[in-house]
């Protein structure tokens, strides 16, 4: 048994360059958050499916992921075995924090998961539909308080986009930032604020229990299993998706990039990953290659625009 074990390690070590690459995945956030969960799920599935023999996760938290991103870009240059998890929040954080390192300094591989924003009000609220909320917003933008995640994050950006689409000055919105959708939830349930906005997952249990009313979701089309109109149906041309992606180190050769992309594709198509998406309630939004690069560019431009409109980026 012992010999077999040793032999398999040896064999594995020799086979490594040809087959499974070892990966180190940087989760640029504290344990427990979305990026950390994504990184740890990647770790589990990559190993389970035999795509990689050994995967390590390292947390480098801070400043909306920009600390981890900067460290990753400088330390892992040309290393084909290093990955970093990131997402839409990072796009905003790079702009608001004036981060010198941007997503251009790494090699984005693929978008993996996505979550749409949900707009909710307390069950007892007089506001019944998105139209009611827009009307109140038009009447007095300051009187409508929105609870959501951190300032300049996806939730804040979505509120800015909604105001803009409704023809309301985005600088006038009364956005109350909490450290996350969870903490904001308490304020919404306690009717401390007019409305709440965050990823649908944060509100799902409350919506099902009938303590919160879901008045809109930020997807392009209606989402199966969720009984709510899209913002578009409510007359607001806004689609916001809080996506998460995986990127590789800068300075890779084309072959190296292709190898990493192939591994990630194998992962995204695997049964194990689909299972993870189901248990975690994440939408599969796999998008790779040039399509992803184009989408990324579009998102960065749109985000920069709205952050300027809200007044967070000069």
């Amino acid at each position: 048994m012992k010999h077999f074990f040793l032999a398999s390690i040896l064999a594995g070590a020799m086979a490594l360059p040809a087959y499974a690459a070892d990966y180190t995945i940087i989760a640029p956030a504290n344990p427990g958050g979305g990026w950390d969960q994504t990184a740890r799920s990647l770790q589990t599935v990559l190993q389970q499916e035999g795509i990689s023999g050994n995967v390590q996760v390292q947390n480098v938290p801070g400043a909306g992921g920009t600390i981890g991103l900067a460290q990753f870009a400088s330390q892992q240059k040309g290393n084909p075995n290093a990955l970093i998890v990131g997402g839409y929040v990072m796009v905003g954080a790079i702009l608001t924090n004036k981060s010198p390192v941007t997503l251009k300094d790494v090699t984005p591989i693929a978008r993996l998961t996505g979550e749409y924003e949900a707009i909710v009000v307390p069950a007892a609220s007089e506001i019944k539909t998105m139209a009611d909320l827009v009307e109140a917003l038009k009447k007095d933008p300051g009187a409508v308080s929105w609870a959501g995640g951190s300032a300049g994050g996806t939730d804040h950006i979505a509120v800015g986009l909604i105001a803009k689409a409704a023809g309301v000055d985005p600088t006038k919105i009364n956005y109350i930032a909490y450290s996350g959708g969870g903490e904001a939830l308490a304020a919404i349930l306690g009717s401390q604020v007019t409305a709440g906005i965050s990823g649908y997952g944060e509100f799902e249990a409350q919506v099902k229990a009938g303590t919160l009313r879901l008045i809109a979701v930020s997807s392009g089309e209606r989402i199966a299993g969720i009984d709510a109109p899209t913002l578009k149906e409510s007359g607001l041309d806004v689609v916001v998706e809080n996506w998460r992606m995986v990127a590789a180190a800068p300075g890779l050769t084309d072959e190296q990039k292709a190898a990493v992309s192939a591994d990630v594709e194998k992962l995204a198509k695997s049964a194990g990953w689909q299972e993870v998406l189901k248990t975690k309630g994440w939408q599969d939004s796999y998008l790779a290659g040039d399509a992803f690069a184009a989408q990324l560019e579009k998102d960065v431009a749109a985000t920069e625009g709205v952050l300027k409109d809200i007044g967070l980026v000069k």
Partner: protein
Amino acid sequence: MATFDFLLQGLWVAAQPMNLLYALIGVTLGTAVGVLPGIGPALTVALLLPVTYRLDPAGSLIMFAGIYYGGMYGGSTTSILLNTPGESASIVTALEGNKMARAGRGGPALATAAIGSFVAGLIATLGLAFIAPYIVKLALVFGPREYFALMVLAFVTVSSAFGDSTLRGLTALFVGLALSVVGIDQLTGQTRLSFGVPELLDGIEVTTLAVAMFAIGETLFIAAQGDKGPDKVEAVRGSVWMSKLDWARSWKPWLRGTFIGFPIGAMPAGGAEIGTFLSYATEKRLAKHPEEFGNGAIEGVAGPEAANNASAAGTLVPLLTLGLPTTATAAIMLAGFQQYGLQPGPLLFATNPQLVWGLIASLLIANFMLLVLNLPLIGLWVKLLTIPKPWLYAGILLFATLGTIGANPSVYELGMLLAFGLLGYAMRMFGYPIAPVVVGLILGPLAEQQLRRALAISQGDVSVLFTSPIAAVLLVIAAAALIVPLILRARGRGQVLAQLAANED
């Protein structure tokens, strides 16, 4: 009485020999990792979560509960013995606990912490089982203005517990408040006092500051004294166990700590630290021998330790009833539940009663295991103090550094650790208390954010701060705590107070 049936059933499952073994392993692992300074329960649970993946749901939940409570408890051991709080909730424990340990009373200090944690964990877990839905309704009434009033009360009561000189205490507090504004302002996303250093954008980590001020500062202070250090450490004086008097002085603080810690832990923005501050201040006020505070009063260990464990159970209230993780640890526990398709939220108690009650039963078992594991180990733990000083403090330096790097691998974090260590040393040299710095760093942002949220929601109308009944009551209590001593002094009882103050360390 379906509740009882489920609980008994859960207990029966949890009491199977195999599951007891899992509980023991969980508690041992949790305690072992939790004693590293800088590594709090959140990281402990995150590191050890994969260990539980391979087990069946019952065994996994039980081991998980063990790791959670073990991690919570591990921090207090180092707090007491080495003056090195493993996490922010055990900072207050170091104040009295370490004084006791140096006076050879480390055994009773550890025992009162262990038994207090057990008592508080037991009561709070039962509270979680039976009154969670009511507690959560109360917690939701707390909006920004109520939280702000609570913070005002915390500031007032805590500042009275700052040692001999109010001026020095307040100076230290303001150092902490100044440090607390570093980083991204949560409400506007703008950076403050970060001087273009990206690592400062997230502000200063409480555990880094606490470990630096306590552990590094202490080490430098001891090293600077050479062999002539005045406070000679005695490992054991008298019994390792609690005496009758210790029991008599401990049981009330345990209960009070539980009743302070549980509701505050259950509040979505409460947190474990505030409960420990309030408990410490309460015990100091109520103590028959307030002069012992600062010199190793057992009440000052018993109360806060009970409070932080009760808070730990309290944080499960919003987690299970609302699906709302209020601490980093709770967020990781949420991830742990999700692997069994358990979606915490308002429907959880109705849809998955077995798992919920299984978890609650596991918490009870883990709590019990912690006691079983730790009481016999106390004799061994206090032996740590007999290690020659140079080795002991070199070891503390090593573990403090390891813990900080483990939590956040960054050169800046290490730099901050050393810089704050020097600050802690300087403050010690000049007789400034160091706890208020950490208190300021914790309470400052909470008070500021809640005040600004309240004013943003009211669009700048200040009167909202006083018009809510709960906020008004809290503010009146805070005002009374501030004014009553002044009135007493004016009525000629100032001498008594002055004498009391003079006796405080």
